[in-house]
């Protein structure tokens, strides 16, 4: 079958790659709704220059090296076929063409191509053992399933579409795709009964037909009990379409933040395609969002698999960093964009002016004030592969005047690796933010911030970081994607989750549910021991699961004061149909899968995720960017509305003075009385997450606590701990570093649309 079998991993096909091409005019046409009749302010010159630069890089790239430019590759293969005379070459080319047709959104044409291949094999009397029957049966099944997915989940989308376990409105009304898939999958299983990927897909196909579980032959049934939640978190309905966020796109990043200071969280999303327009939506505070992409000055700013936010210039407005080039190896040498928030819902691309114009493939960066000088710095973890050559990581020190100085080498941080995530926290509570790096190609890195490396202790001094991952016991697993720091057990020490990103095939997901062995790489939870080491508690905590995580984030679904997490899953392969998964934190002891009870099991590809209280009712909602990598794998984003759980909460908007203004790195301890017993809830302000950016505003669940005895905030810029008393539950406060008290912030709320 040439280079591809039934299943590919996320890494496959992503190395060696390039970009496509699209003119800004086309981007504009895609991005701006026709109804937008308001006067549009002139786009800043720097934004236009960046748009032109992106377009130029794309145009100069080699589309033939980009496995995600599927339609172009299909055309190329057709050109080869038109000239080829050698039967072997023709057969091989047709095989490749069939796959490209599938990925480019023509599954039926792919099936026709397969029929031609089959006839050719008959004519050439290819012996049975060389006909790769299981691979081709699998291929047919995927094609049929894609027909069903495109006709139903995409073209006739509703909030139940592709939600695992599929039922109700998710059942396909146009059933020809899934019907045909069932026939092929049953044939496959009849011949190869150990094929777990076929068994998994068969059960999903029956779900789409509304015939699960009763219609599934007993020997292939995956019992519904396997997917039952261990805790009823209550249904979180997807209201994206109702509130004006009906976004249909490919993989991308997400920032959930209050960009205009009106107290409501707005949304910015990227689309990783080289012609994918960056989009921003303003929360109108009434249950609707309005797209402001053009008026915000973002037209033509394309691509970007991930984004993070911060206030780099301490002006009180949250800025955004758009990270580009991920997975594209040598062809991914795009700049990132630093978008300065002007406070009026416009953004200016200040990448070049800030001294940040560089060209490396990346999706991983973190804002952290490593020298605690009150100006937030930036670490970027790039993707070094054999195809890309060395793409050293970068440390940009904030000069405090709107510019940055790159200084990775002097601190030993110009690391090379296939890095997919970087996060920061003060894991050893020494007051200095450390780094944790996740990579696809080996040991994780925990870079302890040891402070100035020499007698010069000024912010511009040479800085020392030491990789202590080995001694700390946090190097595993070998192939990982997203990760994050959080204090899951509220003991005041930052713990780590790092998610595996390798599978044999989608059968590993079935194996995980069935309790069978599998080779895919599980997620790890490392509990901080408070002495510089961590303990792997993945198994006892319920985290050691086959998740295949890409995007992820954490928050508090039920305001019980314990942090939960949600993962977006999958890989570029269209057969890897995996549900996104939500895990509820059971009192810091274990995590319980609540995917089914909450209605979070999106089967299409899951990318950036963020938690945030969209309607200011005190409960965190969840936004999920859905959509895959290959050209045809577009899907609808989701906004899960929190139904509420009757618990109390407190919101804190922190403002640093000697600490960076967004307070990134600040530590919050809430002492609350719950049932007459004092409990301490710990939170840390971070720059959003490693794939998907949650607001820096602290939205803290208090459980049943009826009063807050005090709140302590450790400000790393000053090293001081501020103690606040008199704060009430179910209220929002603005806290300025060093201030005598917290100022109550009136936040308007709104009901969700019915």
């Amino acid at each position, binding site marked *: 079958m040439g*280079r591809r079998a039934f299943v590919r*991993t996320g890494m496959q096909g992503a190395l060696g790659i390039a970009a496509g091409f699209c003119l800004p005019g086309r981007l504009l046409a895609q991005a701006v709704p026709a109804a937008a009749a308001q006067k549009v302010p002139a786009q800043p010159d720097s934004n236009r220059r960046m748009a032109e630069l992106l377009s130029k890089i794309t145009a100069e790239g080699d589309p033939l090296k980009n496995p995600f430019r599927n339609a172009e590759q299909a055309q190329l293969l057709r050109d080869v076929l038109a000239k080829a005379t050698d039967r072997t070459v023709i057969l091989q080319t047709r095989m490749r063409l069939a796959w490209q047709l599938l990925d480019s959104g023509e599954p039926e044409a792919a099936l026709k191509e397969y029929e031609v291949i089959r006839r050719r094999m008959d004519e050439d009397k290819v012996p049975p053992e060389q006909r790769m029957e299981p691979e081709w049966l699998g291929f047919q099944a995927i094609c049929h399933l894609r027909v069903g997915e495109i006709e139903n989940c995409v073209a006739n989308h509703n909030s139940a579409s592709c939600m695992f376990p599929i039922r109700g409105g998710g059942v396909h009304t146009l059933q020809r795709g899934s019907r045909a898939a069932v026939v092929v999958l049953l044939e496959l299983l009849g011949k190869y009964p150990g094929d777990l990927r076929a068994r998994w897909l068969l059960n999903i196909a029956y779900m789409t037909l509304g015939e699960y579980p009763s219609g599934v032959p007993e020997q292939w049934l995956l019992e519904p009990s396997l997917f039952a939640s261990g805790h009823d978190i209550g249904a979180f309905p997807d209201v994206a379409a109702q509130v004006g966020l009906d976004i249909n796109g490919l993989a991308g990043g997400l920032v959930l933040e209050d960009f205009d200071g009106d107290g409501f969280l707005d949304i910015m999303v990227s689309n990783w395609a080289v012609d994918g327009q960056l989009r921003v939506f303003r929360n109108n505070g009434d249950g609707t969002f309005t797209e402001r992409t053009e008026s915000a000055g973002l037209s033509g700013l394309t691509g970007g698999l991930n984004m993070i936010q911060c206030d780099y210039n301490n002006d009180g407005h949250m800025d955004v960093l758009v990270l580009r080039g991920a997975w594209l190896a040598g062809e991914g040498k795009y700049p990132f964009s630093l978008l300065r928030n002007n406070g009026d819902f416009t953004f200016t691309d200040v990448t070049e002016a800030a001294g940040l114009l560089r060209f490396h493939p990346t999706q991983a960066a973190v804002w952290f004030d490593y020298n605690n000088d009150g100006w937030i710095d930036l670490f970027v973890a790039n993707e070094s592969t054999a195809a890309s050559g060395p793409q050293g990581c970068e440390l940009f020190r904030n000069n405090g005047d709107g510019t940055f100085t790159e200084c990775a080498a002097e601190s030993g941080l110009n690391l090379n690796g296939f890095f997919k995530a970087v996060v920061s926290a003060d894991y050893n509570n020494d007051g200095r933010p450390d780094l944790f790096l996740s990579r696809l190609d080996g040991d994780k890195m925990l870079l302890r911030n040891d402070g100035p490396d020499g007698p010069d202790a000024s912010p511009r001094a040479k800085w020392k970081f030491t990789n202590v991952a080995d001694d700390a016991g946090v190097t595993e697993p070998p*192939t990982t994607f997203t990760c994050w720091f959080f204090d899951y057990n509220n003991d005041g020490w930052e713990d780590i989750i790092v998610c595996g990103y390798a599978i044999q095939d989608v059968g590993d997901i079935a194996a995980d549910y069935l309790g069978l062995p599998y080779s895919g790489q599980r997620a790890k939870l490392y509990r901080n021991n408070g002495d510089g080491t961590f303990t792997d508690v993945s198994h006892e905590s319920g985290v050691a699961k086959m998740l295949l995580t890409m995007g992820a984030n954490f928050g508090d679904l039920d305001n019980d004061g314990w942090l939960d997490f949600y993962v977006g899953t999958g890989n570029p392969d269209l057969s890897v149909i995996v549900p996104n998964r939500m895990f509820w934190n059971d009192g810091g002891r274990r995590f319980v899968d609540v995917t089914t009870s909450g209605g979070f099991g999106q089967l299409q590809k899951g990318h950036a995720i963020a938690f945030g209280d969209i309607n200011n009712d005190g409960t965190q909602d969840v936004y999920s960017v859905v959509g895959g990598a290959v050209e045809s794998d577009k899907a609808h984003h989701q906004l899960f509305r929190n139904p509420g759980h009757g618990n109390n909460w407190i919101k804190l908007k922190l403002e640093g003075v000697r600490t960076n203004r967004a307070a990134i790195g600040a530590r919050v301890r809430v002492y609350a009385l719950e049932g007459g017993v004092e409990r301490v809830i710990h939170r840390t302000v971070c720059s959003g997450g490693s794939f998907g950016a949650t607001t820096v505003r602290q939205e803290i669940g208090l459980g049943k606590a009826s009063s807050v005895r005090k709140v302590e905030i450790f400000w790393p810029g000053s090293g001081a701990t501020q103690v606040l008393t008199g704060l009430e539950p179910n209220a929002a406060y603005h806290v300025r570093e060093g201030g005598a008290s917290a100022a109550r912030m009136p936040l308007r709320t709104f009901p969700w649309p019915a």
Partner: protein
Amino acid sequence: MKSPFRVPRVLSALLCLAAPAGLAQKPTAVPNLNDPSSFPPEAYAGFGSSLGQSSHFGELGWSDEQVGAFMHGMDLAFHGKAPPMDDESHRLSAEFRQVTDSLDQGHPAKFQGAYSPAAYAAFGASLEEGGHFEELGWDDSRFGYMLEGMRSVFRNKPFEVGESSRQLSTAMGRRLAKMDSSVEKPPAEFDPSQLVPFMRKAAKAYHLQMSDTGLGYNISQGRNGIRPRLSDTVVISVHAQSFDGTPLPQLSAENARTRVDVTLPGFREALQMMTVGSQGIIVLPPALSFGEGQWPQGVQPGSPLVFQIILKDVAPAGK
């Protein structure tokens, strides 16, 4: 701990092929076989060509870009910067092995896969590591001559394999023999208290994951979704070694047919993780191999065992 299995040892095998047995018996006095500098550049180029010819480089049909990536990977590995093997490069490796095996046996075979440059680079690096060139004391230029010799085979214009090249082959063959003999010493006693540190060290060296049962495994992606069930019969190739690296031929086999449920507990678990075409390294603590039972002759009772395993086929039960 240097992994003998993380990368294929194809090149080691090639080196043995490249060193004619007769010559190995009759080394000449000049040049000095222990002194790389005493060999002229053409010896290295010819030696590279002989390696390339032995492994049918000229019949693979790789493009210039693929060859370039492959060579780049070898060069990176020579300088200690080997890019790691991933699933894709493992598949490339498997196909390379299949194709060259067929060609060795005189059967026509074509390299059909199209892999990313990164895969070729990682594969090239793995071959370099398998050959341990970086440990030979060669300088950059000598290694470069050898690479050029290999490259010439891809272009179907190989360098002549002259006397000096054959002598260099002999030196390499001797060196490999010495390395092999160094691991054929009787296995040392295994201290049971060292099991946990050993497994930890092995996990690091082989990039293993650990299952709930204590099995250490690193398994590559197979070529299709066909997995064995406990009741199925499988065809596997297994190469075993003891905890100290001693080969264990009594536990090794090529193309062995067996039901999954009659294998060692660690095998039962590992085989269910694989699909046809998967390769893997598994490390079995004693509880998952022979446990309290009878241990085979020559295998240290109570010691952990390391296996390289390839799943070649699955015959479903009842078929």
